[in-house]
């Protein structure tokens, strides 16, 4: 940071640096807008957006390089709550949140809002039950807590196993998202895009571990939130929906409900399905009117919340704060920054849908002639890449609701084009999506690599390893796991969101109760925790396999997105029963739990261990 003078260290000047950074980014956006007016091509603008932001992240990653263990694993424990809140928000909001969430609400209506509720409310559990206590513990990784609280290599290994399964399921989806965006913006094949995305991700984390990831994630949050909010405000003002669309889209919801019966939403079904795409057949704001619909909503909410509170890449962010108090308030800030995006997503979905449906708006396409619709630029562009299709099933030359197919993912990406905003906005959105996917991928890769290097290599295989060697192993693992993730992503096994929901269910099945009870139930012991993790993971995986691949009828509506309910219940029962059947933990362990419960005093584990 030599281009302007700073008094003191980097962490003493955070506000100044990031305000300058935000200003610089806005200037860049304005410059792109000016260049677009001057005739610069859309493709070049897209490339510049993605390239510029990745170069900045890589620069931050390089400036944060370190050879110290506590800087590498927990960013030196000097991240202030508000900044940790931003970093957590970027860590948290994945490609799925940024790209797919508004699209999901658009296509699936009210039932999909279970994700919005679940992915925010989980933080109440993190703040009240987990984060402050894990911070007091002073661990580097989540298995570090399990391994020390319950003792023994078996418990540590099982925690590593759950962590790897859950995080790896999740990270492939993120690498897939970076690949999709990179291939689209840079116009390279998807298979190359995936490796390009991985390169960007590793540039942020290889040299500086948690410290580098923290400071790039703050930068990525700023880009992603600007990229999400600016198009929504701009569209809303341009289309006369009001200045603060999030608070005034109530009448847009009402107008959609009025139009739905007229356009046949929910009654007209597609004559022939198009693979990978769907037509709008679900009512926007009508929850299914049955106990089963309510049950499905709350069980999905429960899976996402308990999963949130068990995902190691989120919990480990709270190891980086200077104090227990800071960890707690950092959770509140995280949720605040996350909510800024999550309460905008349904507004975006609603307003985009209104623009497509409402015949009174110039942008509408339903009910227009097929020829006119096919002449629209955004229709042609997205149809060309196989993301959207217009058919004329009944041959009347008019587009009906069941003749318009698209991939839900494109709602966020295409909104600027539907509303007729300049291309610079689309470039901004691409950079935002890239930031969201990269930041989550970084957090996940680091969680996996740290667990393997710290818990498996250092704590179990070679406890005498010197610092240099530990950090070298950590970096080699980071690279190897990233490559494995990119390889799996390039096989394109499931849609982005399927894999994400599974990660939550795996995490809650194996880790939720061993973590919570480790703090809140002093009696919980090693055999109980081992049983809880093994049975939870085993039963959860078995149930997922049976429901998804072996054709078993789901129990009371618990489909493959909700298998965590089954896994976590089994985990709880196994943990409590086995704990009560075996001896209480020794006095030393009980004293350790007492110590974890109060904020003051030394951490359980030393600052370097």
């Amino acid at each position, binding site marked *: 940071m030599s281009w302007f003078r700073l008094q003191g260290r980097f962490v003493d000047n955070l506000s100044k640096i990031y305000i300058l950074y935000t200003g610089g980014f806005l200037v860049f956006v304005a410059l792109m807008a000016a260049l677009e007016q001057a005739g610069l091509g859309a493709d070049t603008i897209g490339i510049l957006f993605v390239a510029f932001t990745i170069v900045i992240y890589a620069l931050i990653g390089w400036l944060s390089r370190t050879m110290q263990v506590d800087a590498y694993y927990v960013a030196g424990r000097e991240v202030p709550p508000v900044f940790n809140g931003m970093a957590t928000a970027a860590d948290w909001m994945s490609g799925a949140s940024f790209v797919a969430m508004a699209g999901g609400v658009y296509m699936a209506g009210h039932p999909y809002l279970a994700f919005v509720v679940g992915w*925010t409310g989980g933080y109440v*559990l993190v*703040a009240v039950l987990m984060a402050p206590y894990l911070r007091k513990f002073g661990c580097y990784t989540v298995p570090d807590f399990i391994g020390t609280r319950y003792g023994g290599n078996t418990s540590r290994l099982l925690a590593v196993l759950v962590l790897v399964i859950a995080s790896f399921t999740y990270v492939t989806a993120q690498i897939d998202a970076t690949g999709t965006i990179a291939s689209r913006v840079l116009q390279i094949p998807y298979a190359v895009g995936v490796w390009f995305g991985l390169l960007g991700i590793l540039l942020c984390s290889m040299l500086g571990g948690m410290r580098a990831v923290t400071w790039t994630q703050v930068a990525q949050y700023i880009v992603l939130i600007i990229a999400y909010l600016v198009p929504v405000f701009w569209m809303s003002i341009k289309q006369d929906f009001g200045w603060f669309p999030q*608070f005034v889209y*109530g009448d847009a*919801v009402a107008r959609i409900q009025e139009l739905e019966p007229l356009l046949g939403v929910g009654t007209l079904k597609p004559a022939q399905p198009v693979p990978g795409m769907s037509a709008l057949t679900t009512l926007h704001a009508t929850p299914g009117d049955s106990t089963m619909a309510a049950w499905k909503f709350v069980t999905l909410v*429960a899976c996402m919340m308990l999963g949130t509170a068990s995902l190691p890449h989120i919990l480990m962010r709270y190891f980086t704060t200077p104090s227990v108090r800071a960890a*707690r308030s950092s959770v509140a800030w995280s949720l605040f920054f996350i909510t800024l995006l999550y309460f905008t997503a349904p507004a975006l979905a609603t307003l985009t849908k209104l623009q497509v449906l409402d015949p009174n708006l110039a942008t509408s396409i339903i009910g227009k002639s097929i020829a006119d619709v096919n002449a629209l630029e955004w229709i042609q562009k997205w149809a060309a890449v196989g993301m959207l299709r217009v058919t004329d099933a009944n041959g009347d030359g008019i587009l009906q609701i069941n003749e318009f197919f698209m991939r839900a993912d494109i709602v966020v990406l295409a909104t600027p084009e539907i509303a007729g905003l300049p291309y610079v906005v689309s470039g901004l959105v691409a950079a935002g999506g890239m930031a969201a996917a990269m930041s989550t991928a970084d957090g996940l890769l680091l969680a996996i690599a740290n667990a393997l290097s710290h818990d498996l290599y250092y704590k179990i295989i070679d406890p005498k390893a010197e610092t240099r060697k530990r950090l070298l192993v950590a970096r080699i693992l980071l690279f190897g796991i990233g490559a494995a993730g990119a390889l799996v992503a390039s096989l394109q096994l499931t849609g982005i969101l399927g894999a994400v929901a599974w990660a939550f269910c795996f995490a809650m099945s194996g880790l939720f109760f061993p973590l919570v009870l480790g703090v809140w139930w002093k009696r919980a012991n090693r055999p109980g925790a081992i049983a809880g993790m093994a049975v939870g993971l085993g039963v959860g995986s078995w149930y997922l396999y049976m429901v998804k691949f072996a054709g078993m009828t789901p129990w009371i509506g618990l489909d493959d997105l909700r298998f965590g309910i089954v896994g976590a219940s089994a985990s709880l029962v196994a943990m409590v029963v086995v704990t009560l059947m075996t001896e209480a933990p020794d006095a030393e362990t009980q004293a350790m739990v007492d110590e974890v*419960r109060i904020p003051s005093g030394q951490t359980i584990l030393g600052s370097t261990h």
Partner: protein
Amino acid sequence: MTDHSSDNRLMHWSKTKNLMIVHMIIWFFFAYIVHWFATDLNQFRFLDFPVGYYMAAQGSLFAFVIQLFIFVKQQDGIDRECGVAEDD
């Protein structure tokens, strides 16, 4: 000032537990109860929104955020009162 006498610790933990239970009840209400009754709530309107939809798209989210900032203050108050807060 930190005081680690066992009386203080007991008082601290029982207050912390009670606070946890209160917040879990509030959480349970906004996470599950309101959404269970979404269809019934949709008969009412708030800011022109059907209330069931509003709670899932915004209401519960705001409740969680406000709840957490209050929780942070309350827990810090308990820590200080019982003499187990960290030094400022």
